[in-house]
């Protein structure tokens, strides 16, 4: 058997090993450039019918907080919404919402009918603030520490295991 006939098999074995390793990787989990950085400066009015708006200073007020970017027109947001309501009811962490590019009345109706888990809400009608947060698709969820630094970014709808395995351990570590 001549060696050159073995070459294709050899190359394939290397490729196969890479693919096997690749199966364990998560290419969709893109590290955010904002991790460990202070939250961007912003000041948003509340969603229609709510009293408390959301601004950068609220997130630096010495409390760990969760910031959820949502929209009434977004399907996955609807899926994760009950989890946020549940999390807020447990009062482990204040839950804030940034309402991304929504019609004010639609956002209000959405919160009225599905339940409002948010302590503070910010209506980001133009989407400019969300761009500063590095949001590229709703929903996205951030954990912000007492000094207002972003510690965690979750892209896509939260699942129960995300809360159990990612968010709760981090909150416990921060002592909230």
């Amino acid at each position, binding site marked *: *058997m*001549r060696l050159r*006939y*073995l070459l*294709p*098999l050899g190359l*394939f*074995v290397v*490729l*196969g090993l*890479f*693919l*096997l*390793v*690749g*199966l364990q*990787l998560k*290419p*969709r989990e*893109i*590290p955010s450039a904002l991790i460990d950085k202070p939250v961007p400066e912003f000041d948003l009015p509340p969603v229609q019918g709510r009293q408390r708006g959301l601004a950068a200073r609220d997130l630096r007020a010495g409390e760990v907080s969760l910031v959820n970017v949502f929209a009434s*027109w*977004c*399907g996955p947001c609807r899926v994760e919404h009950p989890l946020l309501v549940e999390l807020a009811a447990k009062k482990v962490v204040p839950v804030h919402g940034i309402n991304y*590019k929504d019609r004010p009345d639609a956002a209000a109706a959405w919160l009225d009918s599905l339940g409002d888990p948010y302590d503070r809400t910010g209506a980001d*009608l*133009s989407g400019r603030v969300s761009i500063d947060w590095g949001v590229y698709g709703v929903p996205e969820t951030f954990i912000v520490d007492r000094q207002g630094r972003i510690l965690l970014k979750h892209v896509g709808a939260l699942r129960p295991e995300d809360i159990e395995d990612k968010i709760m351990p981090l909150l416990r570590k921060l002592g909230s």
Partner: protein
Amino acid sequence: MIAELGHFALILALGVALAQASLPLWGAARGDRGLMAFAGSAALTQFLLVALAYGALTQAFLGSDFSVINVATNSHSQKPLLYKITGVWGNHEGSLLLWALILALFGAGVAAFGANLPPSLKARVLAVQAMIALGFLAFILFTSNPFQRIDPPPADGNGLNPLLQDPGLAFHPPFLYLGYVGFSIAFAFAIAALIEGRVDPAWARWVRPWTLAAWSFLTVGIALGSWWAYYELGWGGYWFWDPVENASLMPWLAGTALLHSATVVEKREALKAWTVLLAILTFSLSLLGTFLVRSGVLTSVHAFATDPARGLFILAFLAVTVGGSLALFAARAEALVARSWFAALSREGALVLNNLLLGAMAATVLLGTLYPLFLDALTGDKVSVGPPFFHAALAPSFLPLAIALGFGPLLAWKRGDLPAVTRRLGVALGVALAVALITLALADRHAALGAIGLGLVAWALTTPLVELAERLRLFRAPLAESWARLRILPRAAWGMSLAHFGVGLMAMGVVASEAWQTERIQALRPGDAVAVGPYKFDFKGARELDGPNYLALRGHFEVTRDGRPVAVMEPETRRYPVPPMTTTEAAIRPRLTEDLYAVVGEPDGEGGFATRLYHKPLVSWIWLGALVMATGGALSLSDRRHRVGAPVRARRAAQAATGD
């Protein structure tokens, strides 16, 4: 009940495939004709059973049986009939079942039309085919059962992704699969040849039509996908070098190489081991594409339901199929010795060059596609590889390929005469240079790129014509003789010239639309106007309106050229509530010479709307070229000489005549 029937038929098909994969091999090794003949009936039975299963799933979709999970997740009672039928393969489980159906169809094709094959070769080919079927049927039954029930059933289904509710895309997967799966026949023939240790011209004559058919289908499939991306995604592009697109391009490149190297085996009995390896690689790349698309190891804009468990199954299947066949290749390839030699400068030499360049292109696409995975595995860095890499890396291979495409068909087998060929191609050379110089003189933008590109295109378009004229001895022999030659010119020769001409057409579309496209992206308020190429777009505003199952924002453009009205264009952005998503309906005014393309997007909150406007010269030639290439393939396929078994029959007749 019908779903269970389908499920049961699929389990039976798995059993049949198991028998078909083993007994005929044993029979071929022992020379048992009965066991060898079993392969044919098993292949037909397997096809009937898979067709029954497929029919059952189609029935579930047609009857909106929402107790079947797959129907509930992917269909809707109000969906148009066409999309109920095409919805069967518009999802992971159903598309795998379609794959298995086409696989069984091809197997049945070999069984039905392979009467002239040597019995042992036929038995082995069908056994290898059944091994592939075994893998896919097991994959379906154990990880992706389309017949699973749900209790209680939902009142109505989720509906099909609106992006997929489109005739262009509806027929894209079947063509792709006909291509991918068609290559499995070439693969099965390669494995059978390795087992027998023999590759001869008869083998190549057998492999060629299947490869040709698969290649033509794949060409149409890829073109449909690209066309759909162009008019439906609304990004203005036709090819994005997305992993899922690349997954279909790699087997196409390798299959094109196989098509060319198989001629060398057929005519000259050389390049045998290489051709067998190419047949293995082409199908392996089809399987690799399936793995990449379904496992989620790469990030793609194509939202497939990905699942690591499924990924592991396909990877294991890939390891067995590809690893096993490459090991067999390593052990047996030495037995495949060439029966002839050839000079570097010859038809064979040109075809080797073709293979090297196409192979390099396939390897480049593979590297670019998997590079993010390699880097992530080795260093943890996340990168994406985009069009600049692919353009820069592929152009150096495409340039010599286009030049060789002109020379190759005129070179003689064994030892060619380049000066003589160059003399005969003088016309084409002149045309190419003239076009390049004229472009250089006239073009105000991208002159160098355009000149090289168009010169090359002119070369690729004229050389097939010169080659045809040569075959007919046009202008050199009396017209009557040329006419007589025309009438006996084999269809395969027409097919080749046509396919090569198609390459030129496609290249023309790519070069012209890349070099001279005008793109205008801006926020427009009603009353604003923009110049796009020679046209003026007047934006008259946008309004909301209700569609049958969506809300639309429809923009209104009045397009004029030198003050004369040309068209009214009304692009839309549609927002679907179920399932929630937004689609872009670009307004396109397609013409043979140019496309106008308009997209309207979100309001910017200050009275304006995000708009994108394009003027794309000759862009439709890209798909026209692909269609011409596929037509060339089909024409070649219809050649009498390809009609399977004809040479064997002739030889048998000769043997009978000599009393041998």
